[in-house]
Each structure stands twice: as structure tokens, then as C-alpha cells.
């Protein structure tokens, strides 16, 4: 004989249903949001997609006056600053991570890790502030000196203000360093001690174990970490906007002012009056969005394969 449901049982059932409904709603809302965003970007960029088509990606003229728009200067700026920052910061990130994992004692490692954590949480706009008032004048002095060194008037005049690709690369490198350093450190820490100690027992020096045991072990997760750092760098807006100089022409050298996809939007969105101008800026946002998703997926693939091996 089946017992009748008590009031408590029925209440529990209702609670169960509500709970399930609420969590499902939240989950669906999350999925709907990203889909909606993608759709909205796609629809809002309709005018410029119709006007310029796929060549928008490699057109190099961005001229609001004549209404000729092309994304190439911004894409070039984005890639140069992103990869440049990665190139500059990776050796240091590796160095710091190895230092903290293998060389530093607890008394030093603790504060250093806190310092890195603190800087990792610093808002982008504060990096931009520091970059604008401290880094840019230094870079300017370097650029003018360098221009005189190689005897190039063009470089000297490009370098007088200090804002431009070089400043953006250096600032971004400092910004993504805490991120990549802590990710690499995390993966270094889980290298099994037996492997390390076994090598040492066989007579390897410390660096031998680092080079031949630890680094190969973390290779995949390091690459994943670097890809994630690249994604961070590509999406950076405020700090880059403040030091990259807002140039709308293709940069000819690292000293030239330039724009990334994000900084172009930040600088121009609020004053774009014509539909084609607005649509082109939104298409820049679409390109940026797709780029960010691709990098995200790439990082996941790399990291997941690492876990499975």
C-alpha cells in the first residue's frame, strides 16, 4: 500500500519544482544573453557589412569625413599590441614563476605573490593613468634618443609625444604579466616532486631539472596560459586607449600613434552621427568579439588536451 503524500512531502515537491525552474531559468538566461549579443552586433553592423563586405577586414582607410571605413589599421594595431605584449612579458612571466617555484624561500615568495596578486587586480584605468604620466614620458625620451641615434627625422617626430604602439605594448606587457605569471606558477607547483627529486638524485643541476623536467611537463598548460593572456591583452580597452594615441592611419613604425579595435570604439562611438559610421564601429566590435571567442576556444582546446594526456 502506497502511503499518501503528507503536507510536508507536497511542500517539498513544490520547493523542488521551484528550485529546478529557477536554476534552469538562470542557465537559459546566460545562454540567451550571449546569443543575443552576437545577434545584436551582427544586425547593428548591417549597413557597413552591406557597404564594404568582407574587404572591410583589409581595407586600410578609416575616414569619417568621406565615409570610407576599413578595419585594417585597427586590426593591425590590435595584433601588434597583443602579440607584442605577449612577446615582451612571457620571458619575465616565466622567469618570475620559476623564481617563485624553485628559487625563492617562503619569506620572499609570500610578499612577492601578494604584490603580483595586487597588481593583477588593479583596474585598467589606473594602469592607463600611470602609463600616461610615467611610462609615456619615458618612452618619449627613448624614442627621441633612438630617432637621433639612427638619424631618422620621421622617427624623432613620431616619438616626440611618446604615445603610440610602443607605449601600448609595454603597458600591456606589464598588465598581463601578473596573469600569466600566476597561471604558470600554478602549473609549476603541481609538478610531482618525485620527478624533480629523481632527477636531482641522478646528479642533475637545478637548472637541468627545470629545463628538462618541469618545463616540458608544463608546456601545454603554459601555452594555454599564454593564449588566455593574449585574450586578455586583446580585450583591454582603457589602458590602451589612454596611451596609444588614437591614430586613424596605418602605423608605419612602433613609434606611431595607432588604434586597436577596442580603443577606436572607445574614442569614436559617442560622436559617430552617420549610420554608416556607427555601423562600422559596431562591426569593429563584432570583429573583436569573434576574435575573443576564437582565442577563448583555442585556449580551452589546448588546456583540455593537456588534461587528457
Amino acid at each position: 500500500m502506497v502511503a499518501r503524500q503528507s503536507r510536508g512531502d507536497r511542500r517539498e515537491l513544490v520547493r523542488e519544482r521551484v528550485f529546478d525552474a529557477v536554476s534552469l531559468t538562470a542557465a537559459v538566461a546566460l545562454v540567451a544573453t550571449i546569443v543575443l549579443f552576437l545577434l545584436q552586433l551582427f544586425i547593428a553592423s548591417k549597413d557597413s557589412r552591406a557597404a564594404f563586405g568582407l574587404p572591410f577586414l583589409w581595407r586600410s582607410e578609416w575616414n569619417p569625413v568621406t565615409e570610407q571605413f576599413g578595419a585594417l589599421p585597427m586590426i593591425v594595431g590590435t595584433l601588434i599590441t597583443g602579440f607584442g605584449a605577449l612577446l615582451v612579458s612571457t620571458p619575465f612571466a616565466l622567469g618570475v614563476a620559476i623564481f617563485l617555484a624553485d628559487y625563492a624561500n617562503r619569506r620572499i615568495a609570500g610578499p612577492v605573490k601578494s604584490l603580483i596578486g595586487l597588481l593583477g587586480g588593479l583596474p585598467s584605468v589606473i594602469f592607463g593613468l600611470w602609463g600616461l604620466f610615467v611610462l609615456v614620458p619615458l618612452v618619449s625620451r627613448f624614442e627621441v634618443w633612438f630617432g637621433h641615434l639612427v638619424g631618422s627625422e620621421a622617427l624623432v617626430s613620431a616619438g616626440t609625444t611618446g604615445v603610440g604602439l610602443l607605449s601600448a605594448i609595454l603597458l600591456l606587457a606589464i598588465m598581463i604579466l601578473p596573469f600569466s605569471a600566476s597561471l604558470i606558477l600554478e602549473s609549476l607547483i603541481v609538478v610531482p616532486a618525485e620527478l624533480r627529486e629523481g632527477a636531482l638524485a641522478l646528479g642533475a643541476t637545478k637548472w637541468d631539472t627545470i629545463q628538462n623536467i618541469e618545463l616540458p611537463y608544463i608546456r601545454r598548460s603554459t601555452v594555454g596560459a599564454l593564449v588566455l593572456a593574449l585574450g586578455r591583452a586583446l580585450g583591454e580597452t582603457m589602458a590602451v586607449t589612454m596611451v596609444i594615441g588614437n591614430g586613424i592611419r596605418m602605423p608605419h613604425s612602433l613609434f606611431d600613434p595607432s588604434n586597436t579595435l577596442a580603443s577606436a570604439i572607445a574614442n569614436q562611438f559617442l560622436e559617430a552621427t552617420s549610420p554608416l559610421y556607427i555601423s562600422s564601429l559596431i562591426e569593429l566590435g563584432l570583429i573583436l568579439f569573434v576574435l575573443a571567442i576564437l582565442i577563448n576556444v583555442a585556449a580551452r582546446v589546448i588546456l583540455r588536451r593537456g588534461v587528457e594526456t
Partner: protein
Amino acid sequence: MREAPFEEAGMRTHRWASAVTVVLVVAAVLALAGCGLTGQPSAVKSLTGAGATFPYPLYSKMFDLYDGATGVRVNYSSIGSGGGIKALTDKTVDFGASDAFLTDEEQAAMGAPVLHIPTCIGAVVLSYNLEGKPSLRLDGATVAAIFLGTIKKWNDPGIASLNPGVPLPDLPITVVHRSDGSGTTSIFTSYLSAVSPDWKSAVGAGKSVSWPVGIGGKGNDGVAGMIAQNKGAIGYVELVYAEQSGMPAASLRNSSGAFIAPSLASSAAAAGGALPDDLRVMIVDSLAPDAYPISAFTWILVYREQQYAGRTLQQAQALRDMLTWILTEGQSINESLYYARLPQAAATKALTLVNSMTYGGTTIPR
């Protein structure tokens, strides 16, 4: 008995969940309380505007005084004339501000007639950063050549011939222009197009142009900053920005042949001539003998018909009252901030325009 572990666990979760919920509810209450306090439909206590950086120092002071006089807070965001026009087109602000009047496309995009209410006269000056801050004289052709890039150094004979006896360094000229959509640019390029056929054919006039040389700054303040930071830089800014950053401003040769220094008097002299009723006029390269050649009105833009996008009559009244104040009592502070007052003729026509604002087709009652 066997309920006990659940109950205790439940209670702890309950306490945590309650804490989180309390924080969230407090946040929500705070947010809504702010809205509730000022939700009465009676008087409008705040207005929003956006646009030109050219008159920003003046508006900042004016709105501060207006707040003190009437309790109405005007929130003005200085993002450039282009930004002001976009904000008004999107109807996200009560009024826009621009030193360039609307082009035909922009007027069409607005969808309804827009009034241009002038508020003051300012001067666009050529400000530069040279050792010793010498006073320089320039003329239209020379300025055009500098901004076209044909004159590249400060000791160029073109500049030296206008400034006998002034030591000019062998320094490259760093041209600074605006990177954003700017009414000040519109004024400056209108002047250059008027005085230099080369400029007119190569570049033309507008809020944004394709600059042959130079670096871009955002806003009048951005340009002023770049000039101050770079030796050998020259750029165009509104007079008060040059004054504030301590950089000298060049005297320009006007259409009568005299070299005029930018000042209150010389910019006011430019508006002495006949003015159209809708006050959409560039007063650059004025024919008046004492006029500074790059003087200009700056306008506040509002829709003539104020019943749009759910606006209330009270909002229209508040806007109309603010504009009236600017054209009457507000004018008394212009000169202390290096902006010229509107000449009587212009002020009268402007007031007529303000009174032509309507709500639902009828004039706005007091």
C-alpha cells in the same frame, strides 16, 4: 532524530542566505529610494546636455550659478560638438551644444527642426610652445601652409618675414589638431578655406577633416595639453584654454590687413554685421576692421517642438527657462571668462528663437 543534521546544516545555510539576501535587498532599496525621492512630477530639477568643449569653461560656471539661483542642476558633458549632435539625435539629452551648425544630413537625421541658440562669442587662437613665449604674427596663408605641412620649421622664411626681429629656432613644427568631431575644427577649417584656396581644395572644412600632418588631441583641453607638453608645437584652441595653460596666442592678419590679437573686444567686433534670423552663421574672416579673423558663435541646440520621446511640459519649461537665463542674466559672466557677450542684436534674435519653442504645437507657457 535524523532531521537534526539537516536542520543544523540548514540553519547555517539559512543564515548565510539571509545575510546575502539582506545585502541585496538593501542595495535594491537604496537604488529605488533615490528614484522615489525625486519622483514627483511637479518641478523639474535637473537637465542634461552634451557637446562642445569650446564653451565648456563658460557653461561650467554658468550652470553652477544657475544651480545657485534656481536649484536646477544642469549636467553638461564636454565631449565635443560631434558628440553633442549625436546625443541630441538619439534624444538622450535635453540639449546639445556645438560650434558648428548642423549640416543638411545631420538636420535630416534629427527628424524635426532644431533651433540654434547662440550663447557667446569665442575666439579660436593659434597657440604655440616656443622658448621664451614670443608674440608671433601670422596670416591666413602662412597658417594654412603650416597645417598643410608645406612650412615645416619655425625659422621658415614665411614665418620670419611676418615677424622681423623675433628669433625663431631651427625646430620642426609639431602640428596639433583635433582627433574628435569638433566644432572648433569646423570654425578653424572654415577660416582656412576662406583665406587659402590651397586649403580649400586640398582639405576643406568640417567637424572632422583629413589632416595632412600633425597629431590629434581629444577636445580643446586635449589639444592645449599637447601643445604645452611639446616644444615646437602649434595648434588651434579656444582663447580661454590658451590662457589657462599659459601659452601665447598669435595675432592674425584680418581682412583689412591689420594684425589683430585675440581678445574680447576683437572677437565681439566680428559679430557687428548683419545676422540671419536663425543665427546659423559663421563669422570668421569678418569684414569689420577691428575684428579678430577666427571668431565664432557657439550654439545650444534644442528641438523646436519639445513634445517628443515622452518629454513632459515641465521639462520643456525648465529647458526654456534655462536658455532664457543664459541669454539674459547669464551673459554677465561671459567676459570674466574671456568669452565675448552676445551683441544686443544677436541676443534679441536668440530670445525670439527661444520663445518659438513649442510643446504640442503651442507656445510654452510661463
